[in-house]
């Protein structure tokens, strides 16, 4: 079938006889019709998502959706953000009547997970749930009621679950630990893990390091800014063990050895320092590098070392002008008349005599000597010349590190990797200005959600009072301590639990350790890093005994869980360590497992009661409010939910109503949880504020108006207004701590980049030293040799096995939401797959599409292989999100993931190493799990 020749430009003779025909095609004109259009988006955790869509309806049904694409150009010379969307989003309609949809309350009639159900009424379902909750309260206390925090929560779910759990006094486990998206190394450095620039700010970058991310899969609506930056001269460098899908359009692909990235970053730091390319002004002002440290103890020089009764939180630099140690100001990064030495050895009179001190910079430099390019190349596999070359570029150009959400945190030593990345950015002055930085995920801005939880009636006055009170408290605090700024104060308030502690969340580590079987896993020393000097339990016990986590160290050892309410997530699919350990250890303790979902998830399948929820387009809501997209994005209710599905607010309201009546009937009276009295006999009244908040439209209208009052969105904001406009751009930071902590005022005509107040105004960071901090001189860290940035090889989690299994978000689903969606399944092989190098496959004798068994000392799963030379020999990639029931025997990859975390993350009692919602806490990881693989 040989074909050759040049294209013919002439219209074929056969057609010449019938010009201008357009017959027989009206059917397609008819298919493209509608009678109503609404604004929409998807209020799920496709973070950052927030794609404005239009939903097209016909005869009262949603027919399809289409990207709205109505963004203006914000900053001259920067491409607009149109048309945000992804394949899941533009086909979401297909989920509305999908076979995995749940339409009626279901009660299990078989064993848990057996798949035998009966339809029950909402009333029956709520009665059983209410009684189980009241039993739990009577027998254990409200802490026996657990809500894992899935992240696919829309606004009504967040509001409903948050208020319900708060009124009950139950335990909501922190979502960031559950999803393992906390970047501990960023937190150690900056006192927060989540500085986030807007996606269009990427366009300003001159060097783009795609590092721990795969934006081609996970940033579909935003990935174009990388390609466009490249067309403007930016160099794209993809750093990953595999030739990842995001390497396709990179200029360079650096095939780094799995888990060795800190060595690569430190080698670049070495080059930057050794060649004198570092930004001395930047590090002297922004970081702790000029602070004095005693090399014999590796601890900062503190006021307490110098003066009797001196502070533990006042630090020093050496003033080259006056030749003496001077206290670093805490209220500003600016040194004023002081000229701090970045390097040198100095004698200081301390309470114990004269001590030779040096600077953090000198200690760091000494450590960097271990990572000269040639040496580091042996560790990380990247050629020394390539390291040098890249380091020089980073030093001279605006550099952006893009992990989609920074998946470094999904590695055991992710914190070390992140700290090394931060050090590179610091040495090269790469944060706080356009086109620079590193990022995890950010949220905040939607102040109305925060104030709503406190409201007892409609109207602005209560919110105005809250805002006034906050202003007064802040003013009083700042007057009392002039070193505070709005940011430091806000973050401290959050750390003390006074503000912004979302729905009373607690770190899940205590639940997992005490009741979910994880103690057996975490105490396996051989799965930890060899530098853990003492048994894991000692650290855990010390952390508890020292009250480092109080009052969030719940549930207590005497508070066994009894009821679990999964709303907005899929805890069995999601939990690192796998469903098996939860089903074996946690599930038997639970008298009642309730799942509220739109679909039959793995968790739903193992529940006692499944409650049907409204899908996108069937309830009002907003996308996750984040500076990544700079918009509050509205999703309207276009249609009524089908069957007996309701929105989450309504579902919790119905349960609350039933608790109220059953508590009255049973005589379950008031009780105290934490420090607050609660009364189940009035819980519905409190939940709805005396019947004020039942209707979803009233709730979101109130939230919008309150958010406007806080100055985050335009003053005229209301439900009617956003129904007209679809989205609002952020106008201010508002009052939510995580938004305030971005430390940059949004500007209408500029892309957003965080930390400008630090870099431009010298505002301090919310860390122990009030500077970006590279020395963490907590005793545990010193003991482990991790007080300074370093590299450590990943431990053999899972045992001594030849392959490393890695992971990542997949392209075809938002978490597990779309994994069973036929439309998406059609765009791949319709089943989970494991990416494996052909040479490895040949060695174990499997061919493309064949089933393999992966197993280790922890567990096993089976999956079909997909062969590709993009996979690094010895490493296999199992993209996550597939639901348990897509694997034979329902054993998902999580069952082979130990779900370890580094013991150091239990540390506290040290400046910023203190829990607040979504921030400092232990988060189990799963990358680089060791497995053996054989043909199944």
């Amino acid at each position, binding site marked *: *079938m040989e*074909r*050759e*020749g040049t*294209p*013919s*430009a002439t*219209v*074929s003779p056969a*057609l010449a006889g*019938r*010009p*201008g*025909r*357009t*017959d*027989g095609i*009206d*059917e397609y*004109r*008819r298919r493209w019709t*509608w009678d109503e259009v609404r604004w929409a988006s998807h209020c799920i955790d496709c973070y950052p998502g927030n794609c404005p869509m*239009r939903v097209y309806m016909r005869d009262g049904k949603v027919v*399809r959706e*289409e*990207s709205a*694409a109505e963004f203006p*150009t914000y900053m001259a010379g920067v*491409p607009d953000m149109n*048309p*945000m969307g992804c*394949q899941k989003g533009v086909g979401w*309609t297909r989920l509305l009547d999908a076979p*995995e949809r749940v339409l009626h309350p279901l009660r299990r009639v078989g*064993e848990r997970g057996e*798949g035998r159900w009966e339809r029950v009424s909402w009333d029956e379902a709520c009665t059983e749930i209410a009684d189980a909750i009241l039993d739990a309260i009577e027998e254990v206390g409200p802490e026996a009621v657990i809500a894992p925090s899935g992240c696919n929560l829309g606004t009504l779910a967040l509001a409903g679950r948050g208020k319900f759990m708060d009124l009950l006094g139950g335990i909501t486990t922190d979502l960031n630990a559950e999803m393992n998206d906390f970047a501990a190394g960023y937190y150690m450095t900056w006192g927060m893990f989540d500085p986030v620039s807007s996606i269009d700010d990427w366009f300003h970058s001159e060097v783009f390091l795609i590092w721990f991310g795969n934006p081609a899969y996970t940033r579909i*609506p*935003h*990935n174009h800014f990388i390609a466009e930056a490249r*067309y403007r*001269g930016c160099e794209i460098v993809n750093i990953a063990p595999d*030739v990842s*899908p995001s390497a*396709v*359009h990179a200029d360079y*692909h650096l*095939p780094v050895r799995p888990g060795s990235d800190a060595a690569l970053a430190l080698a670049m730091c070495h080059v930057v320092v050794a060649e004198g390319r570092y930004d001395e002004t930047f590090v002297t002002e922004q970081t702790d590098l000029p602070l004095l440290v005693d090399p014999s103890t590796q601890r900062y020089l503190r006021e307490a070392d110098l003066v009797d009764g001196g502070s533990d939180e006042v630090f020093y630099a050496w003033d080259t002008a006056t030749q003496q140690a001077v206290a670093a100001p805490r209220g500003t990064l600016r040194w004023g008349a002081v000229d701090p030495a970045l390097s040198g050895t100095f004698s200081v009179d301390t309470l114990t005599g004269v001590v030779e001190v040096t600077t953090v910079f000198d200690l760091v430099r000494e450590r960097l000597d271990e990572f000269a390019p040639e040496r580091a190349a042996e560790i990380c*596999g990247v*050629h020394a010349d*390539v390291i040098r070359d890249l380091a020089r570029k980073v030093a001279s150009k605006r550099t952006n590190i893009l992990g989609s959400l920074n998946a470094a945190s999904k590695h055991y030593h992710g914190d070390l990797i992140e700290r090394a990345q931060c050090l590179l950015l610091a040495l090269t002055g790469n944060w706080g200005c356009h086109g620079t930085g590193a990022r995890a995920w950010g949220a905040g801005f939607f102040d109305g959600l925060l104030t709503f939880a406190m409201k007892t009636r409609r109207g602005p006055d209560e919110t105005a009072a809250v805002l006034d009170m906050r202003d007064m408290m802040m003013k009083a605090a700042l007057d009392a301590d002039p070193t505070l700024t709005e940011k430091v104060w806000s973050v401290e308030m959050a750390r003390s639990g006074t503000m912004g502690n979302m729905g009373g969340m607690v770190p899940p580590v205590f639940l997992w350790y005490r009741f979910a079987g994880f103690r057996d896993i975490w105490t396996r020393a051989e799965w930890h890093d060899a530098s853990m000097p003492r048994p894991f339990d000692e650290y855990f016990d010390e952390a508890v005994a020292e009250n480092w986590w109080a009052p969030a160290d719940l549930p207590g050892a005497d508070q066994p869980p009894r009821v679990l309410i999964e709303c907005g997530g899929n805890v069995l699919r999601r939990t690192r360590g796998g469903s098996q350990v939860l089903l074996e250890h946690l599930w038997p303790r639970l008298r009642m497992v309730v799942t509220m979902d739109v679909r039959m998830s793995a968790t739903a399948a193992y529940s006692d009661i499944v409650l049907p929820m409204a899908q996108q387009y069937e309830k009002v809501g907003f996308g996750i409010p984040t500076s990544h997209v700079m918009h509050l994005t509205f999703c309207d209710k276009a249609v009524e939910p089908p069957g007996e599905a309701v929105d989450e607010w309504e579902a919790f309201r119905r349960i609350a109503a039933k608790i109220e009546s059953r508590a009255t009937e049973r005589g379950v009276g008031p009780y105290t949880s934490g420090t607050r009295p609660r009364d189940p006999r009035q819980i519905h009244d409190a939940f709805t504020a005396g019947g004020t908040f039942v209707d979803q439209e009233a709730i979101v209208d109130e939230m919008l108006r309150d958010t406007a009052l806080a100055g985050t969105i335009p003053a005229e904001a209301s439900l009617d207004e956003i129904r007209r406009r679809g989205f609002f751009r952020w106008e201010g930071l508002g009052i939510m701590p995580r938004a305030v902590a971005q430390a940059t005022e949004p500007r209408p005509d500029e892309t957003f980049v965080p930390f400008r107040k630090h870099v431009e105004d010298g505002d301090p960071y919310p860390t122990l030293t009030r500077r970006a901090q590279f020395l963490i001189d907590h005793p545990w860290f010193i003991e482990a040799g991790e007080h300074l940035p370093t590299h450590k090889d990943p431990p053999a989690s899972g045992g001594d096995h030849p392959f490393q299994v890695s992971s990542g978000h997949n392209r075809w689903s938002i978490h597990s939401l779309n994994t069973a969606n036929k439309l998406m399944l*059609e*765009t*791949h092989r319709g089943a989970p797959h494991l990416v494996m190098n052909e040479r490895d496959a040949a060695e174990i004798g499997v061919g493309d599409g064949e089933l393999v068994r992966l197993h280790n000392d922890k567990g096993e799963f089976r999956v079909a292989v997909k062969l*590709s*030379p*993009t996979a*690094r020999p010895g490493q296999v990639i199992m993209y996550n999100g597939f639901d348990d*029931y*897509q694997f034979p*025997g329902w054993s998902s990859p999580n069952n082979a993931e130990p779900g370890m975390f580094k013991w150091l993350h239990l540390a506290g009692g040290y400046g910023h190493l203190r829990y607040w919602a979504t921030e400092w806490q232990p988060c189990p990881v799963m990358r680089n799990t060791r497995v053996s693989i054989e043909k199944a």
Partner: protein
Amino acid sequence: MTSVMQPESGPTGQVAMVFDLNKCMGCQTCSVACKVLWTREEGEDHQWWMSVNTQPGRGTPKDWEDMGGGLSGGKPAPGRQPRREDFGGGWDFNYQEVFYGGKGNKTHLRPVENGDNTTSWGMNWDEDQGAGEYPNAYYFYLPRLCNHCTRPVCAEACPTGAMYKRREDGIVLRNEEACLGSRFCMEACPYKKIYFNYARKVAQHCIMCFPRLEEGVAPACARQCPGRLVFVGMLDDTDGPIHKLVNEWGVALPLHAEYGTGPNIFYVPPLAPYRLHEDMSIDYETPRIPPEYLESLFGPKVHTALDKLKTELDTVRSGGSSEILDTLIVYHWNELFGEYTTDPASLDRSPASVAVQLTTKPAG
């Protein structure tokens, strides 16, 4: 059925598209956008008028490049009709059994093709597999739809005259009332971009979203491509980006021009990361994607096109400016769409009003 006939005289033209493969991330948003709009009725389950494949790869339908068709020396070349299993997909899944069958974890969710539990192909079966050897593996994404060819051999092969090329915009269409399902078009089309509707016994293919174009709205795939990379417009609009990219700068090329049908979909060919030497230092000389492979797709002009892109990149990296790259950046999204920039949400397309339009157009 109402027939809509345009006047026999009047403007002629050719609507064309340029896909910038250096921005395409293989997300299939275009494919899904097309699917939810046009192919969700009976018999259309396996149809993906727009589809994106990983190249090198066997694509959809499987091994379509080996199936012949098109023209050879100006005459129709023999071609093979793709079979249902060459497309694969259109699967059923055992949802009921898994969720409500009482079998627990003794069964699991899986596609059911042709009544059993095996699947052999789908529209994107070889996604992200690629070619080469680690660490120098390579691939890129190639979105494909009907090329609305200047010489549509599909229509020429149609024995009933059901297929035709529309005068004013060159869109190749089919009168499904007249289509007898002979499938000669499927044999003839060298791009194998025609599907057969086994329920309705007619062939179907991409209609270039003509109802949208008629209202000044860009095609669903192009308008929703989050990569911002699909240019749409009249090929002879000398002020438009398509004309510049294709004819002036020569950086956008047709796919398999040697098939002889004069395709009107063009591609900016893919760059790739530098190769690595065995010692992991960078090989600036040897291209990662073998040039002969790219030539097999885009013809010999691919080399000059890529050289031009590289030169322009060098220019901007040394502080200069580039009209070509600025065009490909697309500072304002609507610049992609020529005259087709209408927001569909602004239209009145109620079934009633559209029915009026259909019946009030001059009948032919």
